[in-house]
């Protein structure tokens, strides 16, 4: 499953609490207590689900890297755990006018090699991120025209166009600061010897085996971190990762599939943590060609899907049915379009008949080979089958199937995969639905949609932005540009001695609050 970043999420607090409360009532939420006094010391052993693509934030690509990167790199902007609303990190930001962003950096921050994190260092990082040949985050900073040092601890960004997504963008890879001294000394090899300004510093990385970090004694936040170090033991097989926690070899396993929840609950001395995330399981359409160029066929698929049953059958109940690409707790959620596609196989059949497929039709679909993807595929196949839509599955690795669908081959009509969102909804819609976007397999888009996506970044005012996103959602939902299925909940297993762990809406654990009891 592709893992894609999310950063900024500005949810109404009561919505999140309601969602969490509902989950707790349903017996799906078991948050550990945070109230105890945090003890200092100890090394946390974590079963991590993937080898990082790189330890250089600018050159990496996988969304699963973040949990590890955040231990070594602090970001200019951070976010609130429950709402993902941007908040100051190593810097505070202001927009004196829509095309100017000023970053005021906190004084006294040092990288692990002793280099000072000042305006020059921030400018160096931002310039590198937006122009270095190896940078994967160039598109995130494409609205920046120039970067100027306007004080020892102040950087001013001149923008080509207003871009209210920038604070959220700087809470992600683009805002992770690396030591300029290290980059200048090692060039491309810094990903194997990373130096940041985060709470822990790098010790060792053996590919597919282990990553070790140890306390940064000069960390700018006094009294932090609690842990002396963290060992990430890379275990890609979920059940094996969980067994390592049950056996006491690791203290924590995260991002486990829902099917393992009973195993965690049966184990002695383990805490189960589940919490909502923005990870959206969905059907991608190639709507540039027949038969999915016909809006009625796409709508029929949406009517044929029973999302409530999908959550129960494919996610063991650990999820929220998805009506659009953002969950109901999101600030940009548009409840007016939420009921566009109630489960109605008869209506699906009718729409198919109107589209000229009264005997149903066969569609080709790509999927992945892992157990959870196969299970999802089976549920979808069954549901669409009842409306006369027969699916012909091709399965393979993520790299293989995703490339076949999104790149030049255009092999299938549909793809069952996921979208875990972006730091800002404008990126979610821009990258997924805009013309020529990579994740829009057909590379076509309604010009009005493209215009609205651009407009959604013009204002900082959330209510104004929400109005624009409502229009965007109306287009994407009513013309059925995809079929969102469910937002998957995070599932983690923690040993009893792990204290203070707090899940976040992003679904990618941070370890800053953890202590060992």
């Amino acid at each position: 499953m592709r893992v894609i970043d999310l950063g900024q999420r500005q949810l109404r607090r009561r919505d999140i609490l309601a969602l969490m409360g509902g989950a707790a009532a349903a017996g799906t939420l078991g948050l550990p207590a945070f109230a105890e006094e945090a003890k200092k010391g100890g090394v946390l052993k974590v079963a991590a689900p993937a080898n990082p693509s790189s330890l250089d934030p600018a050159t990496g690509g996988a969304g699963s890297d973040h949990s590890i990167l955040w231990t070594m790199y602090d970001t200019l902007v951070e976010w609130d755990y429950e709402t993902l609303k941007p908040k100051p990190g190593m810097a505070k930001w202001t927009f004196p006018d829509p095309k100017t962003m000023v970053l005021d950096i906190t004084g006294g921050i040092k990288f692990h090699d002793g280099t000072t994190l000042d305006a020059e260092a921030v400018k160096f990082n931002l310039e590198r991120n937006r122009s270095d040949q190896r940078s994967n985050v160039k598109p995130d900073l494409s609205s920046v025209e120039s970067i100027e040092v306007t004080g020892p601890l102040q950087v001013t960004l001149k923008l080509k166009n207003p871009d209210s997504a920038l604070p959220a963008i700087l809470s992600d890879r683009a805002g992770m600061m690396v030591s300029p001294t290290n980059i200048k000394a090692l060039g491309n090899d810094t990903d194997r010897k990373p130096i940041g300004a985060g709470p822990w510093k790098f010790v060792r990385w053996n590919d597919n085996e282990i990553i070790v970090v140890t306390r940064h004694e000069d960390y700018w936040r006094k009294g932090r971190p609690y842990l002396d170090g963290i060992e990430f033991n890379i275990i890609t097989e979920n059940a094996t990762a969980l067994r390592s926690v049950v056996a006491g070899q690791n203290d924590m396993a995260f991002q486990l599939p829902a099917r393992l929840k009973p195993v965690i609950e049966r184990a002695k001395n383990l805490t189960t943590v589940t919490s909502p995330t923005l990870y959206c399981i969905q059907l991608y359409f190639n709507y540039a060609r027949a038969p999915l160029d016909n809006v009625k066929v796409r709508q029929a698929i949406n009517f044929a899907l029973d999302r409530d049953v999908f959550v129960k059958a494919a996610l063991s109940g650990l999820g929220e049915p998805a009506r659009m690409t953002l969950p109901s707790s999101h600030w940009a959620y548009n409840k007016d379009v939420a009921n566009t596609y109630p489960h109605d196989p008869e209506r699906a059949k009718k729409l198919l008949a109107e589209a000229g497929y009264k005997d149903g039709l066969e569609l080709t679909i790509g999927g992945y080979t892992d157990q959870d993807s196969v299970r999802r595929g089976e549920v979808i196949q069954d549901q669409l089958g009842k409306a006369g839509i027969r699916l012909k599955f091709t399965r393979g690795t993520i790299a293989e199937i995703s490339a076949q669908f999104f790149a030049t081959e255009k092999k299938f009509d549909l793809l069952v995969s996921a979208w875990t969102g972006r730091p800002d909804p404008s990126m979610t819609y821009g990258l997924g639905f805009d013309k020529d976007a990579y994740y829009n397999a057909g590379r076509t888009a309604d010009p009005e949609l493209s215009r609205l996506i651009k407009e959604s970044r013009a204002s900082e005012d959330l209510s104004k932005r929400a109005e624009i996103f409502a229009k965007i959602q109306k287009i994407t939902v009513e013309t059925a540009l995809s079929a969102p299925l469910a937002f998957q909940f995070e599932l983690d297993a923690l040993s009893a001695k792990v204290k203070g762990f707090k899940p976040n809406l992003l679904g990618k654990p941070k370890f800053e609050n953890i202590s060992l009891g």
Partner: protein
Amino acid sequence: MRKSARLRIVGRRLLQALPVVILSTFIVFGLLKLVPGDVAVTLAGDNASEQRIAEIREIYGLNQPLLVQYGSWLFKALHGDLSKSLISNEAVLTAIQRCLPHTILIVVLALLTALVIGIPLGIAAATKPGSWIDGFVMAIASLGVAVPNFWLGMLLVAFFSLQLNWLPATGAASLMKDPWVALSHAILPAVALASGGIAEVARQLRSSLVEILSSQQVRTLHAKGLPPSSILWRHGLKNVSVNLLTVVSLLANRMLAATVVVEAVFAIPGMGGLIVNAAMNRDFPVVQGVVFAMVLIVVCINLLTDILYSVLDPRISS
């Protein structure tokens, strides 16, 4: 057989192995390029755009003709440089040096387990063919072949790690730094891997031994009054040793391949995991490097087998 003749054979076989190694890496390279999927997409990450993917192809030389890509890899490899992982930038040789000892330890332990348990079982069955012992051994052998080693691995973990807490459930340690810890990590995977081997050794040994023990020659030895134990050890086992060697050699090769699954169950950072991850991401320098190393090992196992053949039965090499 004279020593110089044996050395000549070794030299000749090593020279013959070189084209095998090169050909196998070429075939794997070709297959990897034929299979859909693109490392450039993985490298471009979540912000992938067509333009960025094209740019990455350019940076890493992935847009060059296949033969040029392969040729440049081979040229470096023959000079001792196995390149770096496209994904993580780690030197492939470093990765192999780190992962190979874990895999070798499990395979060697599994092979020893297969021999230590399989040989007595095979002898017991062969000396009393048709008896209950024979039936019992053959039943165990069938079970050993039928039970998938990953499933057995999970059962072993459930009992010895999770229930009794005797042995670790996952991971590995360095044999040089922590021999006891390394062994404690390797025991369960080795037993899981050995189950099929035990069965194979017992069955092969039984059938060869039964054949020899019922031969005219052995009946004559019985008639001459030679004690049965002497017949078994001096005539029976000596004669089946070549067959046994073949079984062991095949087993070693097969176990090397089977480690892929066992390593996943026990989260062992060995060669299996290395090649699976690399193949999934189309990280061809890593795949090539692992194939290179594995083919070399198989060639060495086969070479060693040939030399041992000539020691056990000089007629084979002459």
